[in-house]
């Protein structure tokens, strides 16, 4: 290394260090703040990991990004993926989303792979953090999902076991009435427990043995701990259900046990929308899915999102899980094309998951919030658009993914054999 290179090298180290502690100003950008407000043109200042100012008047920053004509949104937060726990769907050796042993307390947190190719891919599509959920277990309620920030840091940053999942509906072979009975038995049992009885595994095991549940299910102490959290700690419960009558029954159960209930799927929500609105139940729907895929989903309708929004129901969107979750923006665009408000669709992708699942200071462009931000090359609800810049925790993250690398491999330096290309 000669002298001048040394100087540059030292300068780069120094300069990088300076950038990290200095501010970034995104200037003259069209802002959808995630909070269902109309867009406005303004300036956003990022300091450390936070948004320190949002203003329509001029701001100063050390690094200035002119984003005239571009749209800025909070990072997209999926509520239903297996990002980080499934690498290839049909390859069981790459799947960490199910358990044979645990029914209710199954946690996927420790299986999360920060080096999954899914993470750079999703990030390059504007997805900055995710709620990752296991597969449904054999129990109608059970399995715990965790929240992860997609910063590719090998040390996982997220929140463990912040949501429980469940499912009711047509299953072939057993009545949904049986499913509802099991759910109520489990909740009844959990409601009868006091925290003093559950200090050791031995105590918990005895509680299980003495309970009527032991007759119908094999439970582990971890299962009962999770169930206790559900009824006593307001743990959010996402139940996958579609048929209108099932949705009403779930509302009844929610009221009886005072559950923090979210319904996912909800294809027939349009038939019982008033009851859902009155009971303030947030929904996770796939707005592009209008296929009557089962007899539970006969009322599937492309105008569902618009209808629910009019009643003030909190909506979040899902999409095919993990690899193809980027399609959620297309779904949101279809929802808008079919009557939903634009700002409402942005909120469904960003702030609503944060509010429903208590994900902290994310999902919104406002002073003091964590700077997970996307500058889009065009309208983010057009599936043809892509992020131009993505900030996670205030850092401008690299948008290279395995897909961009493979694209380069087959469109550049084609004179070399492909094994010798970059």
């Amino acid at each position: 290394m000669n002298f001048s290179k040394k100087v540059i090298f030292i300068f780069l180290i120094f300069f990088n260090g300076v950038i990290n502690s200095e501010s970034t100003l995104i200037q003259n950008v069209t802002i959808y703040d995630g909070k269902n407000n109309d867009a406005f043109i303004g300036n956003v200042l990022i300091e450390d990991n936070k948004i320190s100012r949002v203003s329509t008047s001029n701001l100063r920053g050390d690094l200035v990004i002119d984003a005239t004509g571009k749209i800025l949104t909070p990072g997209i937060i999926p509520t239903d993926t297996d990002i980080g726990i499934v690498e290839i769907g049909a390859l069981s050796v790459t799947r960490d989303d199910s358990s044979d042993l645990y029914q209710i307390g199954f946690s996927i947190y420790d299986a999360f792979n920060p080096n999954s190719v899914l993470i750079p891919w999703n990030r390059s599509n504007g997805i900055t953090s995710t709620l990752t959920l296991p597969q449904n277990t054999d129990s109608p309620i059970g399995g715990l999902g965790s929240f992860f920030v997609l910063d590719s840091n090998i040390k996982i940053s997220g929140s463990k076991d912040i949501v429980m999942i469940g499912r009711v509906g047509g299953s072939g072979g057993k009545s949904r009435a049986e499913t509802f009975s099991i759910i109520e038995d489990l909740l009844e049992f959990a409601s009868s427990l006091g925290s003093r009885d559950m200090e050791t595994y031995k105590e918990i095991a005895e509680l299980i043995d003495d309970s009527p549940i032991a007759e119908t299910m094999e439970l582990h102490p971890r299962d009962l701990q999770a169930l206790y959290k559900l009824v006593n700690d307001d743990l959010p419960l996402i139940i996958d259900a579609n048929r209108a009558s099932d949705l009403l029954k779930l509302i009844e159960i929610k009221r009886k046990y005072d559950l923090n209930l979210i319904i996912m799927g909800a294809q027939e929500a349009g038939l019982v929308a008033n009851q859902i609105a009155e009971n303030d139940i947030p929904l996770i729907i796939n707005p592009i899915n209008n296929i009557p895929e089962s007899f539970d989903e006969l009322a599937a309708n492309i105008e569902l999102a618009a209808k629910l929004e009019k009643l003030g129901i909190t909506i979040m969107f899902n999409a095919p899980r993990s690899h193809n979750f980027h399609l959620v923006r297309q779904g949101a665009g279809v929802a808008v094309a079919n009557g939903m408000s634009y700002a409402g669709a942005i909120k469904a992708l960003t702030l609503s998951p944060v509010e429903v699942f208590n994900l902290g200071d994310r999902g919104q462009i406002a002073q003091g919030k964590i700077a997970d931000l996307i500058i889009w090359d065009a309208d983010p609800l057009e599936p043809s658009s892509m992020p131009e810049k993505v900030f996670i925790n205030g850092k401008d993250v690299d948008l290279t993914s395995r897909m961009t690398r493979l694209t380069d491999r087959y469109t550049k330096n084609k004179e070399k054999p492909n094994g010798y290309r970059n």
Partner: protein
Amino acid sequence: MAKLIKYYFLIFACFIQAEPFQSTYEPLPSENILIRNANIYDGEGNEFIETDLLIQNRKIVAIGKDLPSTNDFKVIEASDKWVTPGIIDIHSHMGVYPAPGVSTSSDGNEATSPVTADVWAEHSIWVQDPQYALALKGGVTAFHILPGSANLIGGRGVTVKNLQRNTINSMKFPDAPHSLKMACGENPKRVYGNRQQAPSTRMGNAAGYRKSWIQAEAYLNRLNEYESKSDDAKEMGYAPQRDLEMETLAGVLRGEILVHNHCYRAEEMATMINIANEFNYKITAFHHGVEAYKIADLLAENNICGALWADWWGFKHEAYDMVQANIAIVDQALGGKGCAIVHSDDAIGIQHLNQEASKALSAGLRAGFDITKARAMNWITSNPAKAAGIYEQTGSLVVGKNADVVIWSKNPFSVYALVEKVFIDGATAYDKESDFQPASDFDVGIISPNKNRIKE
């Protein structure tokens, strides 16, 4: 070439007496229509701004500025709207995997033997599938229904008009050639390998195709020998006994039946091209082809289309190397000689093929290609029409072709564009404004007795 195919077809048809399961399609009542001041993508790579389109007696009769019309024409003012050919999906399982997806009508895979060239998808179709009407609202006027991919050779596909009718024959696209579904890779070797039978490996797959083609060659030789005899000699002997499997495979070797080959990995597509050359048949299109971009020039050299997704991936190992520019790279192979098709393989995707094309186009632009929207429109219109063998009748807005036409509220490369009207053979099949739309019998009174399924 088309004449040659028809000539062969006649011989073949004579031999098997009459072609069974003929189309009995009858279009809806004909209308004479002038669409005025529309922006048009013609499906041939052209864009016309503020241009008129004239439909008469089921055909497109003129495209141009200020076209005259008489009083018996219905005039549709289409300023700021866009007009395209009817969208065509080259890969659908509607009808054979209908909704609801229940076991009793899951009829797309005859997964009882790795070679089932004797089965025809059209004999599985449920004509009351509620998904057709949803696809119609996405501008789809014709689609190609294939058997699934469990088998090496899965059986015959069929092209239908998107007009729900009470019999399959009355939905069949008149004069459309039959197709043959073949499948590479993980699916056949998994289905049969799990049963401890061949194929359980990719080399087992290759051996399976080749064994079948050897049989088909022998059958075709017997057939040709018999057909080359004089009429007197024919009367003296017996015709070779009919064989449903061999009739299909011989149809491929004679160029009458088009091969549609499910195949993901680049090297497997190259192997399939070798096998096609060995037995002298043509592959019309590779379907799914997540790795088509790795051999785009090879596909173009062999005049094989890539029927691909814009960005669907990751559900299995052979779908792991997805790039968003796949369709654009295939399109631009050999300086733009490639044949790219956006397919759905999905009852949601078929409703939004315009959006899929839009994603594929923008990925191509980002990868540095110079591709127009007008050209990208070919990916969902004329190119699938060519691959289905119906390009002479439909797939582009050209004078003399069937008036299969879609009017969009906005530029169809936008997610906000909604289909306003669909014409099939010069007749209104869907009209958003007047709420004119079909419903299958399944939709009738099923949630509430006085309503159709998705009516409020």
